[in-house]
C-alpha cells in the first residue's frame, strides 16, 4: 500500500481493494467527475498527475510518515468509553481519537499531504474554504510550517459562530476572508475559493478540505484520510482480536467518515454508518442531511446528492454544527449509499447535543459538535442492536467504533448558549440563535438543570465560586 498507517498491521487489506474506484476520470459509479469551468481543467490535470507520481514516491512517503508521527502525533489512540456506553444499550464503544491530533481534528491528515503536493508542483500560495474553521486552521498551520502564503475563505455567518478559529488562523499568519455572498456559509466559501483559484491558478493551489469537489479531490483527500481507518483496524485487531460490528462517523462533506470507512469497506460483515446533520429534524426542512433528504445533482464540481429545489438551486442547510452545515456530500458517499455498502442516518441538533453533554460528563472528553453526531448515532445503533439481540459475537456485546473526529474547544460558545451555561450581562449572537431555535433562555436538552453552574473550583470545603477562583489563592 502507498498511504498507510505508520505501523500497519499484517492484516490490513491491500489499499487497491478499495481503490477499485474512482475510475480514471474520477467517477464513483455515476457520481463524481469534473463539473468545472474549462479554465480549471489544466490545474486539475496537473494536480492529478503530480499526486499520482507523489503517492508512490518513497521520499514523499517517508516525509509524510515523519510529519504524521512527529508533528500530528499519529497514531492516534483508541479509547474505550464504558460509562458513555451505558447509554448505548450495553454495546461496547471505542473511540478513534482524532481529536488528539495537532490542531484538534482529523483535518490535519489531509492538509499535510496537500501542502507537500503544493511544494512539489512549485506553487507558493494556498487557499482553502472552511466551515467550522478546523480545515482552515489545519491549512494555516501547514502553510506556516512549510512557508506558504495562505488565504482562507469562511462564510461570514461561520466567522461569528467560530470566532476562536478565526483568531487561531490569524495567529498562524493566514488571511481570513469573510464571505458575504449567498447564504454566507461553507457552500459560499467554496464558491469564493474556486473564483480565487481560477484567477490565481498560476501561483496558487487549492487545498480542498473534504472528499467533495472535482476529481482528483475526492480520491486524494480519501487517500490522505484513510490513515484513520487503517490505524483503527490494526488497533482493534491487536487489542480485541476482532473487527468492530459497526463503524460510525459524522458526515458533512464526509472526509472523516471516508477516512475511517475505507479500510473496512472490504470487510463486508462490518456495518458502516454515516450520521448526517438532521438539524431541527429532516421533516422540518431545516437540516443538512444530504443523502437522507436530498437528490442527485451537481454542486461544487461533482455529481453527488445535494439539497436542492425544483429549479436546481442549492437549498440552504441548517445544523448547529458549522462543520456539517453543508448542502452537498462527497461523491464516494453517494456511491457507497447507492450500492448499499454504507448507510446514512440523520441525527438532530438536540440528539447531538445530548450525546455531547454525555461524553463530557461521563468520560471527561469534550467532543466537537460534529463528532457528537456520531456519538448520538452510537447511542441509537447500540440500543437497536442490543434490543434485537444482534450484532455481537456469541455472548459478547456489540462492538462499536466511533470516529471522534475533533475536539470541542471551538464549540464552547455554542454549547454554552445551548445549555445556558455562560455568565452573561449582555445578549450575544448565541442568545439570538437560541431564541431563534425556540429555546429562549432555557437550557437545551441533554444537560441536567441542577448541574448548570460550576460552583466550586476545588472540591473541599474551601471551595470558592467559579468566578472568584484564583483570586484567593
Amino acid at each position, binding site marked *: 500500500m502507498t498511504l498507510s498507517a505508520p505501523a500497519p498491521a499484517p492484516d490490513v487489506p491491500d489499499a487497491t481493494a478499495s481503490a477499485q474506484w474512482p475510475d480514471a*476520470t474520477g467517477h464513483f459509479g455515476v457520481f463524481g*467527475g*469534473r*463539473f*468545472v*469551468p*474549462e*479554465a*480549471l*481543467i*489544466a*490545474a486539475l490535470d496537473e494536480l492529478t498527475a503530480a499526486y499520482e507520481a507523489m503517492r508512490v514516491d518513497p521520499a514523499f512517503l517517508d516525509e509524510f510518515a515523519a510529519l504524521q508521527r512527529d508533528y500530528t502525533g499519529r497514531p492516534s489512540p483508541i479509547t474505550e468509553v464504558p460509562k458513555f456506553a451505558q447509554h448505548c444499550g450495553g454495546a461496547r464503544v471505542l473511540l478513534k481519537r482524532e481529536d488528539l491530533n495537532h490542531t484538534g481534528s482529523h483535518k490535519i491528515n489531509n492538509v499535510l499531504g496537500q501542502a507537500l503536493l503544493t511544494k512539489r508542483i512549485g506553487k507558493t500560495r494556498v487557499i482553502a474554504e472552511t466551515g467550522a474553521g478546523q480545515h482552515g486552521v489545519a491549512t494555516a498551520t501547514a502553510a506556516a510550517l512549510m512557508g506558504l502564503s495562505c488565504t482562507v475563505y469562511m462564510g461570514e455567518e461561520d466567522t461569528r459562530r467560530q470566532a476562536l478559529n478565526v483568531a487561531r488562523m490569524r495567529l498562524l499568519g493566514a488571511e481570513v476572508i469573510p464571505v458575504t*455572498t*449567498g447564504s454566507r456559509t461553507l*457552500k*459560499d466559501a467554496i*464558491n469564493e475559493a*474556486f*473564483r480565487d483559484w*481560477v*484567477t490565481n*491558478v*498560476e501561483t496558487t493551489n487549492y487545498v480542498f478540505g473534504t472528499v467533495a469537489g472535482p476529481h482528483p479531490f475526492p480520491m486524494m483527500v480519501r487517500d490522505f484520510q484513510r490513515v484513520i481507518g487503517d490505524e483503527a483496524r490494526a488497533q482493534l485487531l491487536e487489542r480485541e482480536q476482532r473487527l468492530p460490528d459497526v463503524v460510525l462517523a459524522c458526515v458533512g462533506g464526509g472526509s472523516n467518515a471516508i477516512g475511517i470507512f475505507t479500510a473496512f469497506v472490504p470487510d463486508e460483515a462490518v456495518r458502516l454508518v454515516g450520521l448526517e446533520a438532521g438539524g431541527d429534524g429532516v421533516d422540518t426542512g431545516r437540516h443538512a442531511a444530504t443523502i437522507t433528504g436530498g437528490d442527485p*445533482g*451537481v*454542486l*461544487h*464540481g461533482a455529481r453527488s446528492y445535494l439539497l*436542492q*429545489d*425544483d*429549479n*436546481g*438551486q*442549492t437549498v440552504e442547510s441548517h445544523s448547529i454544527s458549522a462543520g456539517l452545515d453543508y448542502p452537498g456530500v462527497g461523491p464516494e458517499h453517494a456511491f457507497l449509499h447507492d450500492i448499499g455498502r454504507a448507510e446514512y442516518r440523520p441525527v438532530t441538533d438536540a440528539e447531538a447535543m445530548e450525546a455531547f453533554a454525555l461524553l463530557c460528563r461521563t468520560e471527561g472528553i469534550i467532543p466537537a459538535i460534529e463528532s457528537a453526531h456520531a456519538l448520538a448515532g452510537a447511542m441509537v445503533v447500540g440500543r437497536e442492536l442490543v434490543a434485537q439481540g444482534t450484532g455481537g459475537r456469541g455472548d459478547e456485546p456489540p462492538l462499536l467504533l466511533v470516529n471522534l473526529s475533533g475536539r470541542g474547544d471551538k464549540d464552547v460558545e455554542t454549547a454554552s448558549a445551548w445549555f445556558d451555561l455562560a455568565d452573561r450581562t449582555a445578549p450575544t449572537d448565541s442568545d439570538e440563535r437560541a431564541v431563534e431555535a425556540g429555546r429562549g433562555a432555557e437550557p437545551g436538552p441533554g444537560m441536567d438543570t441542577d448541574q448548570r453552574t460550576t460552583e466550586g473550583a476545588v472540591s473541599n470545603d474551601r471551595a470558592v465560586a467559579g468566578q472568584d477562583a484564583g483570586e484567593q489563592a
Partner: protein
Amino acid sequence: MSSALADVIGAARAEGRAALIAYLPVGYPDVDTSIAAMVAAVEGGADVVEIGVPYSDPGMDGPVIQEAVDVAVRAGVGMAEVLRAVTAVADAGAVPVVMSYWNPIERYGVDRFADDLAAAGGAGAITPDLIPDEAGAWLAASDRVGLDRVFLVAPSSTDARLAATVAACRGFVYAASTMGVTGSRATVGDAAERLVARTRAAAGEPPVCVGLGVSTGDQAAEVAGFADGVIVGSAYVRRLLDGHGPDGVRSLSVELAEGVRRAKVQA
C-alpha cells in the same frame, strides 16, 4: 447539421464585422423587466442574446452578475420564465441562446430541456461548468433536436483539449479571454487574441467568440479585430443594477454595435 448561431455569426462576417452577443439573466430586477431589457438589447443592435438561467452557486461569475442573479434565485425564477424569454428574444429578431450552469438543466431533465428549448425557438445552450467529457447526455439530446451547444476554452487549455472541445461545439466556441471570473476589466489583453488563434488552428476554423471583461465600444472594437463575436455580460447587468433599465441596456447595445463594426474582421 445547420446552426442558427453559426448562421448569424456568418452573416455578420459577410458584412465585415463581428457579431454582438449580449448576456442578461432572467429575473433581474423582475422577470418582465429582464425580458424587456433583452428586447432592448436587440433593438440596440445585439445579434444574439445569451439568456442567463439563475443559479444559486455561479462559480464563474464575478460580483456584478452574482448580485443580479441572487435576486432572481430568491424570487424562484426557473426554466419556465427562461423559455418565455427565449421566445421573446426570437420574436424580437435576434438569436436566443441559453446560458446555464449544469445543475438547473440536469434538474429540469436534459431531454425535456432540449425539447422545450427547441420548441420555444432557442438556438442552443452555453454551459460554463460542463466540459464535453461530462456532456454525454447533452451531446445526445442536442443532436436529437438539432440544438447548438457551446463549450468554453480558456488560456490554460492544452492544444489537445482545444481540439476536443472545438469538435464538440456547434454554433461557436466561447473563448474566455482571461483566467478569472466575469466582470469588467480595464484591458482585455493579449491572451484573448492568442487563444482565438490557437482555437482556430486546433480544428476546422470554427467561429470563435470572446467573453469576459469587455464593457465598452472601444474594447468591443479591439476584440472584433481578431474574433468572430464579442460577448458582453457584466456591463449590461451593471446598467440594470444602476437603475438605468431597458433604456440603459439599449444605449449600451448601440455603443457596442458601433464598436463591433469599427474594426474589419480578418477573413
